[in-house]
């Protein structure tokens, strides 16, 4: 690894802590970002000459803070100073740095940084884009490519999201335990969105799918900050298991391979083992939650050596628990899969049909419904369901998968007519 590559890694890994602290000082996302950028530029100049600092994050916070204060002063010459309280405590530059970096703040700094990206007025895609830009430091270009939009469009989206966050006001007070738990829950949901964006993009090439890796990094970061939160353990485990199947989820042509057809030797056992440990740790807390249950379901799949050995009874029971905890048509739909394995397609279809109103715009609803109808030999209805599914597919791989179903249904219909 070249020196520059090493510095790049150090900057990436120090970013959440440094950005979080700079946001606390400046109470303004743009200013914090500019200050961090400036600190990174100086690091690139300074570190190769003088060697890496012992604590890169502290170095970046110190340098970024000073350069940000310079910026504010320069601007102040051209425009009236903002109200004193907005400037936070910019004046006490000389106050002891060590005290500020002793870690008393950094947990809440990073949590705040993640939390501002989850503003409820922001649609999911903007939350994801903002978090990847601000917290992970992905380039606008990388994010735009993953969302299949132009760089300019993504730049605009992120700018708008930032403006919204700024207008809403950044909650800079230190949260109490209740507020902290609330923030943590919201941030966890956002990280899961980041992961799912990468997961459902269905790009088999690792290099093009940095979202999943970023989500894992964010999970581990949260877990380092809040080591005793069973739901964060659950979320991390869930994501690790889903990510462990990356190499098995697509064939060489980029076609989707369903869970039951996957080559299980391609699953990443290291990630699965780590997830199983995290689930064991979470269970000790005896505070079940939605992520823990979903992780437990994923673990049952991961533990089955072959698809036939899957413990569908346990999975069905876990889905029922999940439904009690978090009733949702999507959970019911997933449960229907387990029911179809245990009791057959008819019982599953009975669960699925009542969801039509709520899930009419949901790809997987029509996909599963089509599959069940097909198993029951109701080919005409299956065809209609797959037609709806293919219209709702968001990736070429999804569309191609449904296309295969449509073809086989058509063959069955032609046979029936003979």
């Amino acid at each position, binding site marked *: *690894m070249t020196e520059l*590559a*090493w510095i790049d*890694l*150090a900057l*990436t*890994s120090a970013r959440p802590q440094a950005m979080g602290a700079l946001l606390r000082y400046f109470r303004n996302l743009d200013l914090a970002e500019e200050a961090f950028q400036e600190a990174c530029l100086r690091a690139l100049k300074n570190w190769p000459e003088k060697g*890496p600092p*012992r*604590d890169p994050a502290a170095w970046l916070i110190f340098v970024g803070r000073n350069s940000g204060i310079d910026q504010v002063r320069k601007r102040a010459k051209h425009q009236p100073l903002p109200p004193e309280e907005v400037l936070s405590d910019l004046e006490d530059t000389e106050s002891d740095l060590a005290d500020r970096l002793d*870690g008393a703040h950094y947990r809440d700094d990073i949590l705040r940084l993640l939390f501002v990206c989850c503003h409820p007025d922001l649609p999911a895609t903007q939350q994801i884009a903002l978090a990847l830009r601000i917290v992970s430091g992905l380039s606008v270009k990388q994010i735009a490519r993953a969302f299949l939009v132009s760089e300019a469009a993504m730049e605009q989206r992120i700018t708008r999201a930032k403006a919204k966050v700024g207008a809403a006001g950044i909650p800079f007070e230190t949260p109490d335990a209740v507020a902290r738990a609330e923030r943590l829950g919201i941030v966890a949901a956002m990280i899961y969105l980041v992961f799912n964006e990468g997961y459902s993009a269905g790009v088999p090439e*690792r290099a093009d799918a940095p979202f999943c*890796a970023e989500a894992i*990094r964010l999970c*581990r*970061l949260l*877990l*380092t900050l809040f*080591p*005793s939160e069973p739901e964060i*353990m659950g979320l*991390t485990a869930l994501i690790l298991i889903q990510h462990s199947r990356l190499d098995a989820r697509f064939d060489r042509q980029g076609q989707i391979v369903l869970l039951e057809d996957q080559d299980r030797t391609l699953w990443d056992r290291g990630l699965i*083992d*780590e997830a199983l*440990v*995290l689930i064991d*740790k979470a269970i*000790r807390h005896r505070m079940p939650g939605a992520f823990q249950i979903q992780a437990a379901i994923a673990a049952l799949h991961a533990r089955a050596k072959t698809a036939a050995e899957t413990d569908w009874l346990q999975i069905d029971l876990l889905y029922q628990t999940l439904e009690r905890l978090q009733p949702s048509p999507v959970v019911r739909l997933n449960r229907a899969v387990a029911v179809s394995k245990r009791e057959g397609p008819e019982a599953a279809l009975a669960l699925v049909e009542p969801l039509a109103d709520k899930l009419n715009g949901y790809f997987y609803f029509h996909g599963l419904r089509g599959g069940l109808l097909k198993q029951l030999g109701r080919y005409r209805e299956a065809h209609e369901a797959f037609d709806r599914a293919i219209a709702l597919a968001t990736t070429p791989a999804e569309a191609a998968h449904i296309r295969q179903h449509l073809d086989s249904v058509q063959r069955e219909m032609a046979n029936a007519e003979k």
Partner: protein
Amino acid sequence: MLYAVLCYDSESEVSAWSKELDDKVMADLGAVNQRYAEAGKLGPVARLMPTTAAVTVRKGATDDIVMDGPFAETKEQFLGFFVIQVETLEEAITFARELSAANPANGTYEIRPLQFFNPGGPIK
């Protein structure tokens, strides 16, 4: 003399490695290991899972307390170890230097002589 060579590094940096880089580092470290193994000098080697997977058992007033996370919150974490049998400290230092050269991170290797060593049997 038997030495444990302990690897410390910033976990957040190591976990930001791409899969490709991680694989390459493991292969490069493996090559160093291989030479010492062939010379009959290498004992057990382990890479630890992330500290987020750890729990710590501490003495409590009445009962032992199980806490989530690693023993110490530090800037560098204990990530793995090697056990070698070499004649001199110099040779142990050479081994650590070779590991360091094979490892792109700015980590640290601590060389600690072993007082008691049970190599264990094969684990089923």
